[in-house]
Structures are given as C-alpha cells and as structure tokens.
C-alpha cells in the first residue's frame, strides 16, 4: 500500500514536470519586446511593479535579449526551482505574490463549486437510476433529453440568459458580484446576501454539470442491472425495490464515489466563464483578468496550480477506488 502510494507520487511528479515544461515553453513563445512593452504599460498605469521586480523576473524567466538555448534552459530551471519552493513569482497586475493571490480567491470558488457539486450529485444520481430502471420508457427519454440539453449549453450563453432573465428582467437576484456593496450586512443577513448572489451562478453550474453525472449513473446502473448477481438477488425473492436500492446501487456507487474523490481538488480551480459572467471574485475570474492584462507570472502560476490539482485528483480517485471496491487491491 505504502509502496504503491510512493510509486504513484513519484509518477505524479514526473507528470507535473512534463506539464511545467509545456507551460514554460508556451510562455517563452512570447516575443521579448512584447513582454517589455507589457511591463512598461503595466508600470505606467498602475505603478505597482518596481524595476527590481521586473529585472528579477526577466532573469528568472531567462528573458534576456537574444537568449540562447542555454539561457532558456537556465530560465526554465530557475522557474522550476522557484516552483518547488512554492514561489510562483509576483503578479504584474495585482502586485502581490501569485500564491497569495490564488490563496485569497480559492475559497470563493471552492464554496460555490462545492455547493454546486453537492446539488449535482443529489439530483443526478436519482435521475440516472430512474432512467436506467425504466430504460426506453417515456421517463427515460424525458430525463435524457433534458440533461443532454444541459450538457450542450455553453456556460457563457446559459449564464447570461439566466442573468438577463432572473436578475435583470425579474429582479429576483442581484446580477453581479458576491456582496451588495451598498448595504452593510452582518451575521445571518450577510450569509443571506451571499446566498442571493451565488444562486444563479450555482444554478448555472448545476444545470450544466448534471448531465454528465446522470449519464454516468445511468450507464453504470444499466450495466449492473444486467449482471448475473442481480439475477441472483431476484432469484432470492428480494423485491425489485430492494434489488435496485441495495444490490444494484451499491455497485453503481463505486464509480460515482471514485469520481467524487477525483473531483475534489478540481473544485478549487474555479469556473472561469461562470465567474466572469457573474463577476464573482473567484480564482477563475481573477485568472481571466490577469490574462487580459498579460500577467505572465500569474497565468503560468495558475496553470501549474490547475495541473497540480488534476494530478492530485487522479491520485485520490485511485485511492478511493481501492477503498470502495473490495475487489481492488493496491499494488
């Protein structure tokens, strides 16, 4: 078990190395003069970046004029060295260390994503089971069509439709932001205010993500329902309800729980589009703004952050699989 985990960790580090290589060299595609211009323009506008920082960054990224291959490699190694020490550099746009900025906004994204995921599972699993146990019935068709529409909706389109309708036309919810700046809420009313602000974003995310989960449940459930042990359970004289809810469901749960574990880290990564549409101060929206401002350290840092999250997700999913499925032994 321990040996397995160590092996997997070593392997994860290898993957991350590869990812960092790709991210670094993509960034290096940027012409140096352009980077200089960008830095200058940021400096003149906000003046949060001092020259020392700029020089340090130039050096760290190997962004010297006429860089040779060795310089680029040296730049990569420098950046990698900083990365290992969790130093992602200082953001141009925000003027504070990238790690700090990410940590600041991670929470908001996480809370929204967590609530959305809870709803997603709570709605999608029963839907998937009922669609599978009533395969080819009207119920199956209706559920399938609805969730397929959900899958097919672009988040920016659906988010804006909801915003236009529920916030602007009906005025039920505030369209933008996380809090109402004009009011001074505290305690319960503050939470209520947050709730009103995140309602539409969460609704957007849930509608969009239910489909994949529901279809996963349905496919698994169908497979399980056709298996021999379900026939055995029926032959025992168990009522169909027990066969489905006990024997079939426990087996369907395995991939679902596994996927939940794999999902956990990615909850921190933020929903770029949704946060942009509703102007939420989540990590995704921050990253988008950083990108529009050409904030190289932040974009690189954010991409690495996402890659680490997905590597952890894969690891967690594997471990979870071994925990929930008695047949799987880690080795």
């Amino acid at each position: 078990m321990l040996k397995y985990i160590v092996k997997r960790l070593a392997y994860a580090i290898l993957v991350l190395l590869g990812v960092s290589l790709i991210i670094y060299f993509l960034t290096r595609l940027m012409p140096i003069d352009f980077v200089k211009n960008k830095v200058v323009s940021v400096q003149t506008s906000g003046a949060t970046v001092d020259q020392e920082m700029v020089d340090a960054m130039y050096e760290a990224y190997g962004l010297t004029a006429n860089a040779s291959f060795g310089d680029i490699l040296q730049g990569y190694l420098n950046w990698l060295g900083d990365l290992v020490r969790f130093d992602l550099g200082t953001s141009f746009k925000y003027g504070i260390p990238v790690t700090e900025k990410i940590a600041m906004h991670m929470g908001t994204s996480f809370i929204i994503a967590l609530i959305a995921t809870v709803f997603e599972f709570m709605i999608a699993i029963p839907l998937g089971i009922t669609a599978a146990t009533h395969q080819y019935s009207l119920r199956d068709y209706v559920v399938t069509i609805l969730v397929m529409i959900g899958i097919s909706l672009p988040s920016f389109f659906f988010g804006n439709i909801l915003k236009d309708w529920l916030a602007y036309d009906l005025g039920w919810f505030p369209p933008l932001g996380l809090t109402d700046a004009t009011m001074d809420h505290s305690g319960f009313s503050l939470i209520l205010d947050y709730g009103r602000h995140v309602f539409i974003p969460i609704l957007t995310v849930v509608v969009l993500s239910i489909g994949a989960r529901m279809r996963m449940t349905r496919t698994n459930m169908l497979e399980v329902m056709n298996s021999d042990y379900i026939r055995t359970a029926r032959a025992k004289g168990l009522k169909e309800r027990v066969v489905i809810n006990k024997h079939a469901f426990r087996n369907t749960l395995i991939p679902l729980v596994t996927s939940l574990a794999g999902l956990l880290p990615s909850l921190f990564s933020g929903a770029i589009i949704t946060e942009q549409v509703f102007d939420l101060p989540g990590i995704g929206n921050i990253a988008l703004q950083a990108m529009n401002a050409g904030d190289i350290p932040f974009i690189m840092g954010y991409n690495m952050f996402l890659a680490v999250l997905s590597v952890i997700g894969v690891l967690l999913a594997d471990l979870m699989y071994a925990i929930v499925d008695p047949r799987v032994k880690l080795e």
Partner: protein
Amino acid sequence: MDELEMKQEDVLETDVPLDKNVRLMSPTQMLLRRFFRSKLSIIGLVMVVGLFLFCFLGPMVYTQWGETQIDKSGMVEYSTSKATYTVDGVTYELHQTLERQESDNAYSAPSASHPLGTDDQGYDVLARLMYGGRVSLLVSFMTVILMTVLGVIMGGISGYFGGIADNIIMRICDILMCLPGIPILMILSSAMDGWVELQLIEEGMRIYILMFFLTLISWPGIARLVRGQILSLREQEYMVAAEAMGYSTGRKIFKHLVPNVMPQLIVQMSLSLGSMILYEATLSYLNMGIKAPYTAWGSMINIITTDPDILQNYPTIWVPAGVCIVIAVLGFNFVGDGLRDALDPKARR
C-alpha cells in the same frame, strides 16, 4: 459430446444464423434499424443536417445581406417622455419627443428586411449567423479530424509496437490529460498578442492556431481508445489464428483491427464534435476568436461582455447565436449517442 458444447447458451443474442433456412437482417440493416429506432438520433440528425444546410446553403437563398455588409439605410428612433409639474396651482404636462438618427441601421428590431434584426454595427444578424456558423462548424470539424488522425497514429503505434514506444506515448498522454484546457490556451493567446503586435502573424489567424494547438493536446482520449482496442483484439483468438496463418503485419491490422476500432472511433468523433464546437465558441466568447468584421457564433455573443445594454435590451443580437451553438452541440451529442447505442453489441433491444 463436442456437438453439444459447440455453442454458448446465448443463441438468442447471436446474429449468426444457426441454419440456412432463416433470413436475418444484414449488418447494415441492423445498424440503421438500431440507430433510427431512437427518436433522439433522428432529431439529432435533423438538427445537424439542418444547421449545415442553413450555414452553407443559406447564404445562397438569403442574398439580401452579406456577412460584412452594413445596413447603411439609416435608423430613426423616436422616444417620448412625459413630465408633469405644477406652477401656481396649474398643472402642466410636458410631452417631449426625442429623435435619434444614425446613418447605420444598427440595433433594429426584426423586420421584413432583417428577419432577426441588426446588431450594434448594423450587420444583419441572420446573415452573420450563417457565415459565422461556417467558421464554427469548419473549425470544429477540422479539429476533430486532425485530433482523430493524431490519436489513431499515436494509439496505433502504442498498441501495436508496445514496449518503449508504448511507454513514452502513454506518459505523454498522462501529461497532456493533466493540462488545463482553456487556461493553457490563454497562455498561447497571450503569446500571440505579442506576435500580432510584432506583425509576425495576422489577428485573423488566432483562432485557427488556438484550435490547432487544441488538437495537439486533445488526442490522448482517442489514442487510449485505439490502443485499448488493439490490445484487447491482440488477445482474441482470431488474431492468434491470423498470426498462425502467416498473415503480414499490415494485413492483420487492416483486415481485423480497423473494422473493430472504427465504430467506437465514429462515436467518439461525433461526441468530440460537440465539445469542440463548445471550445471554439468559448474561445470566441473570450475574445480569442476570429477577427472582426468576420464572425463566428461565439464572437456574436462576445458583445454582451462589453455592453450590458445589449444583454438586457437586444436579445435578438446574441440569443440566436447561442441557440445555434446549442442546436449544433445537442445534435452531435444525440447522433453520437444514437450511434453508440446502435453499435453496442450488448444492446438488449
């Protein structure tokens, strides 16, 4: 005794005639029957074909407006306001009429000459929907085809040769699968800002380069599918038999592997088409799309990020493009799903 053990119990599920006196469905008939049995596949097919006709034949029928043709007929808009005030006990009512006149007919409501109205620039929305759809559909198609070709080659090498090649390719897959999609494209797009500024490339190339890069990082799914199929097929008895009969490597692959991988590949492709359309639309929405005055569906929605007035008051400008995206993605998803069911040998009905 061998006579008795000849066949598995599932006679009912085999498609092989047990005796010559029975007529069965041909494999093609079976596939078509299964595909068309599901109403959803038919709906999906209608949606996809309809959209293609709309985008590629539409402009030939609807010739009044071109993609980049601004309606210069001008626009006059009247707005009235009323105010009442009281002076010395007498109530006055003031009616005011404002006339706004512009040379471009922008923001016009649907009318006979503009079935879906015009946008903020005075372009005809319906015409731009057709031309924009061409870009969205073509880019997505190219992406999926390239991605599939790459995936098949990589998966084929990996599964067929195994060993070191397999190891390297699979590790690359692991790495690529951990890359974040949109954010990594953001880096590239930032880099491209520099190229554009230095006039190394044209702005219009951006979306094509981005989507090309997307193919470079999205082939692992296909590669794994192909590799898995090859590995499982290699274990099958008829492959061993083919080997024993001395068939050459190439012949083996084409005769046995390709027909077995094809169905799954087609399913995967049609589902990928949906997700690529979404990708393209999202990039366009984030202003990384095709350069004005040309347009794509996502770009047509992009306007609402800068102008909330359009979001609230001019749905005819952005909603139709969104609806087109939904129809396209939904259509491909339905078709892909229908194909998957039709090709599933385990299907019960």
